[in-house]
């Protein structure tokens, strides 16, 4: 492709993705890839196919045609859990945190640390170790939101977003760096909080996580994306390095006023 910054195998690569809903062609032979440590913005107007493409990546939809490769290996993403298994984590707009539980518990659910010895066999959770691990993980991401014992319901919108992002980040940054799909991560946030989330997204990328960011927000995309892919009516019309483009071009591609760079 035109603007790859890395020469290694992409973390996630989609080739020739078609998606039909009855007679409607939602996606028309889309090629898309994101490398490790790269933030790729997925832009487009409503109905351009961003969400459909994201759903295919997250395993919620199966494409009518095309292949998906994760770290070079072809995978069948037949369900969200298959995607999770392949190292792909989706952060939804609705965050899905457990409000009444504290931050540490939210970050650790599904991968709890049990206490050593007989208590561990009985299923007792080591809250202290969990808090420590979560603190370390958040420190590594450079975000200290709040005391680990604070219930999520007492956090601000930005802090919740940070917790949700961190939860996904800690789940994909295991043995092999994974892929994070973000759907409008700052849609509900104010300016200040958006800055925090932007910085967090950059830091996650710096740690080698591949990030796909779906957004309407051009300022956000400009601030965090290495590369941008623009969809228009189900076709890919642009794939450009952020530094080599400007808002006018992007808006042109998004609205369809500017001709596709692939025709």
């Amino acid at each position, binding site marked *: 492709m035109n603007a790859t910054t890395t020469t290694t195998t992409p973390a996630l690569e989609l080739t020739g993705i078609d998606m039909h809903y009855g007679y409607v062609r939602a996606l028309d032979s889309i090629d898309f890839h994101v490398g490790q440590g790269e933030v790729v913005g997925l832009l487009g107007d409503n109905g351009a196919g961003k969400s459909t493409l994201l759903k295919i990546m997250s395993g919620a939809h199966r494409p009518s045609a095309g292949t998906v490769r994760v770290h070079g290996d072809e995978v069948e993403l037949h369900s969200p859990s298959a995607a999770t298994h392949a190292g792909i984590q989706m952060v939804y707009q609705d965050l*899905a945190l457990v*409000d*009444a539980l504290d931050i540490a518990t939210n970050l650790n659910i*599904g991968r709890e640390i049990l206490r050593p010895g007989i208590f561990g066999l009985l299923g*007792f959770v080591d809250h202290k170790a969990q808090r420590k691990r979560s603190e370390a993980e958040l420190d590594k991401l450079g975000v200290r939101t709040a*005391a680990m014992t604070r219930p999520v319901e007492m956090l601000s919108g930005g802090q919740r977003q940070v917790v949700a992002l961190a939860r996904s980040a800690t789940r994909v940054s295991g043995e092999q760096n994974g892929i994070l799909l973000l759907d409008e991560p700052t849609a509900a946030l104010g300016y200040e909080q958006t800055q925090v989330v932007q910085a967090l997204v950059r830091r996650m990328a710096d740690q080698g996580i591949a990030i796909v960011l779906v957004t309407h927000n051009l300022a956000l995309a400009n601030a965090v994306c290495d590369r941008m892919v623009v969809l228009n009516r189900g076709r890919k019309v642009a794939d450009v390095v952020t530094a080599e483009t400007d808002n006018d071009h992007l808006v042109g591609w998004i609205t369809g006023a500017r001709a596709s760079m692939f025709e």
Partner: protein
Amino acid sequence: MTSPAQAGGAATPGTPGAAASSTPPTTPGPAVAPAKDSAGVRGLIFLRDRGIFVLWVLLIAVFAVWANPYFATLNNAILIANAAAISAIFAAGVAVGIICGALDLSIPGVAALSSCVAGWMITNGLPVWLALVVGIVLGALVGLVNGLISLRGFNPIIVTIAMLSITSAAAAIVAGGYTFPGLTQLDFMGTQRYLGIPAPVWITAGVFLVGTVFLTKTRDGIRLMAVGGSAEAVRRSGIHSDRYKVFAFVISSTCAGLGGLVTTATVTEANPSASPGLIFTALTAVALAGVSLVGGRGSLPRVLVGALVLATISNGLTIVGVQPYWATGVTGALLIGSLTLERWVTTSVSRRLMATAQASVHTGTR
């Protein structure tokens, strides 16, 4: 308390006194702005989470004066505990169910079925221990069925109402329309006292101890609460949330079976008629304890105090000679009062948090 401006918080960097008044400072980071949002918010949260304890202490104080000298005696305390014991066991079952989002209305039927089957076994000369085990396992099985049916997308309320009918019918069939009287073999868990305290109180204490430890300390308990709070969050963490829902039904029903057995032991008679009043008393205790009916929130110790509050009111009013139906009315008023309080606290907390959200994000702590 709440007055110092949030913007000026930086003037007192890391005041040790301010930090000490809040929770144990887990993070040694800069404790700048937080101290003041917490004072108010923490007070409100305390009111919501511990309000039931305060209410109970107030009730005891009022009755200690009003019903002096008969109320504030050790014997009366034991009487109250004993009166609360059985409804507390049922309330524990209801609470665990609700916390996980699985309201079980079949509890009275399950209690009747367990007690009748155990009564039948004991009357027919089978060993007492076996009768008790069968009674409890039966409860668990009904819960399992409730859970598995509800998972198929049926409304759990209707499913458990149906199960209420089925189990109470089964209890009546087992009993052949009569009761099993004279079950004195169960005295050891009914009227017998250990260290001066009646057996049902010990059993209730055990149930709540195990339940509380389970819900707050163990992996499965925490996941169970999380499923009630947001099944979606748990599912996205790669956990089968359905299993935990079924598990909640099983716990609920097992408590019902146990409650039925303890009732039988106390009255030395197994009665096949399921009393729906049981579930309402349990629900009242649970709601008084601030267990959100939406799920995901609640604590068993509070539920225990909820049951104790109900027993205290009816005991105290009886001693001062007020007609017992007043107690029912007072309970209803308390319930509405507690809902109002909960709503008020929730809205004020969120308003206060909104006000300080900007500052919190800015400092990056708290």
